[in-house]
């Protein structure tokens, strides 16, 4: 009996889910191919798009703990022993305290055990939640930039491992996380730029009030001027003569250096991520390549945008694609800062606000054929989904689900990375928060 379109559609879907290409399946049904192809692409597009939706790791961890507590409660209730009425309240309090203690201690252990978890391992959501806690305690923008850069590098390595193992679904999900991480880092750089701009603007205003006339007509001996002098707007000093710059200038200089360091950090980290991702592109399954290319492009965009300050004088500052070494906005007639010196920005009112949301959105190609997540999933149920429940219920990732040595060193970048537990260490509060 001839198959109808619905049956052929279902058969092709199943074959594509198992890793076959749409074209290959349609070759079996040349008469129906023209009609079925767009439908198959729509179905695969919906599957891929939906798989990008990941539950919030904190929510997953919270729910896991609640389920764990409910399981423990159910176990405690099992020996149907009816307590006497007088001790009932004491028993419930004891249980509550025990549950809290259990959850607390199991969380600590789980958080540490999860630090090396990979996206396909049960403890991975715990790792993500722990990172969120670490970020919550990175109070300064500088610390945030450093932590986001670290986390982005971790994501890139995880993507490389998943790509090598042919786990398309996890590559796509982790690529989304990497994009978030890089953009968060960029946000923090912009925040630093804003602070720097505000400080420089206030100094510029105060300097204009105190020394306007001579500075406007003085020549600009840039090569001999010290940074502090430039920032303070004073005349060049004789060699060896030491002066103490005004405290406000120090603050501005420090802010400038912080921003420069943050930009350098992002540049270095993003370059490393691009290298890792490009290095794995060839080995990645074809279905994972669009996601990999997308995240590589995203990384290049972030890299391009963080080359130079965005919060400067209302104009993009580019010198043949290289980062400008001194911020513009210097007061005319003042000694010019040298290559690594801070300059002065115009008053705050002239400063253009940052545009962190400028990332051009590339719509997900609904019609692009990509085998869906389930086609690459292993059959072992203990390893197919990341989970969040604390030990002892979930086996630690160092056992069967741990990859081999080659898996842990993508592109040779692992050695420079801090371990996951280091993320918790400096902040020391992830478990307290939990």
């Amino acid at each position, binding site marked *: 009996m001839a198959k109808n379109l619905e049956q052929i559609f279902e058969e092709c879907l199943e074959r594509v889910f198992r890793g076959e290409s749409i074209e290959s399946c349609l070759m079996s049904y040349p008469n129906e191919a023209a009609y079925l192809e767009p439908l198959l692409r729509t179905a695969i597009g919906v599957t891929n798009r939906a798989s990008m939706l990941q539950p919030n790791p904190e929510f997953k961890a919270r729910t896991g703990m609640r389920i764990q507590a409910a399981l423990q409660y159910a176990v405690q209730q099992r020996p149907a022993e009816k307590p006497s009425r007088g001790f009932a309240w004491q028993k419930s309090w004891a249980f509550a305290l025990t549950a809290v203690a259990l959850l607390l201690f199991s969380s600590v252990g789980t958080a540490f055990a999860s630090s090396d978890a990979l996206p396909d391992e049960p403890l991975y959501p715990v790792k993500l939640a722990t990172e969120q806690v670490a970020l919550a305690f990175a109070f300064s923008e500088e610390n945030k930039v450093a932590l986001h850069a670290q986390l982005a590098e971790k994501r890139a390595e995880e993507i490389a491992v998943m790509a090598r193992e042919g786990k398309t679904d996890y590559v796509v999900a982790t690529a989304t996380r990497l994009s978030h991480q890089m953009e968060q880092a960029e946000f923090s750089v912009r925040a630093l730029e804003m602070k720097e701009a505000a400080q420089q603007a206030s100094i510029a205003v105060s300097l204009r009030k105190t020394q306007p006339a001579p500075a406007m007509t003085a020549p600009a001996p840039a090569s001999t001027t010290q940074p502090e002098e430039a920032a303070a707007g004073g005349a060049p000093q004789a060699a060896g003569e030491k002066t103490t710059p005004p405290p406000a200038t120090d603050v501005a200089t420090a802010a400038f250096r912080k921003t420069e360091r943050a930009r350098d950090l992002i540049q270095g980290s993003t370059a490393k991520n691009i290298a890792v991702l490009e290095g794995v592109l060839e080995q990645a399954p074809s279905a994972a390549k669009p996601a990999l290319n997308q995240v590589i492009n995203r990384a290049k965009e972030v890299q391009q945008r963080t080359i130079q300050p965005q919060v400067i004088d209302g104009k993009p500052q580019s010198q043949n694609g290289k980062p400008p070494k001194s911020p513009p906005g210097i007061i005319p007639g003042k000694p010019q800062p040298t290559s690594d010196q801070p300059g002065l920005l115009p008053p705050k009112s002239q400063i253009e606000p940052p545009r962190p949301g400028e990332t051009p959105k590339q719509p997900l190609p609904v019609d692009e054929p990509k085998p869906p997540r389930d086609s690459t999933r292993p059959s072992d149920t203990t390893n197919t989904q990341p989970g969040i429940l604390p030990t002892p*219920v979930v086996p630690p990732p160092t056992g069967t689900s741990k990859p081999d040595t080659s898996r842990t060193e993508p592109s040779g970048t692992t050695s420079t990375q801090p371990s996951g537990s280091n993320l918790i260490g400096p902040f020391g509060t992830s478990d307290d928060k939990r």
Partner: protein
Amino acid sequence: MSSEEERLVREAIAGNQAAFTVLYNEHFDKVYRYVYFRISVRSEAEDITQEVFLKALQSIGSFKWREVPFAAWLFRIAHNLVIDHMRKKSKHKTAPLEEAWAVSVEDPVAMTEQRFEMADLAAALKRLPPAQQEVISLRFIAGMPIAEVARTLKKSEGTVKALQFNGTASLRKVFSEGRNG
């Protein structure tokens, strides 16, 4: 149901916490996605997903593994909770989709990007007839095989295949209209 899953379900029914945990980890993301695309409001989807697993834990003793696969049973719970929620929701005014996304605690830029993609898909799904919505959600979003979708919805496989085919064609039409208009 695979023999491994069958073993896990048996152990979970017998009160083995580890077995239930493995089942939980295996199905959590899929259940969440399914609920989210039916509800379209993140906070509500989280509440319902949590409720699905608490309910599953509560009633795992009544699960008969010979009748339906565990996933089908779990999605049946999710489906019932979604239907109950929609009934209640139709009686009260609720937050629009945009507002629901805006309250997310995650990275705002990334959320904005994902918001459009997810909102597009959720909005497209909403334009399908309910039966097609259910099949598309279970098949493409929860990733269930056709036989399990049929068991979950208590329909024949032939009916589910037809709904899947028509639902996909409708979705394609909705996406094309979105692009052109």
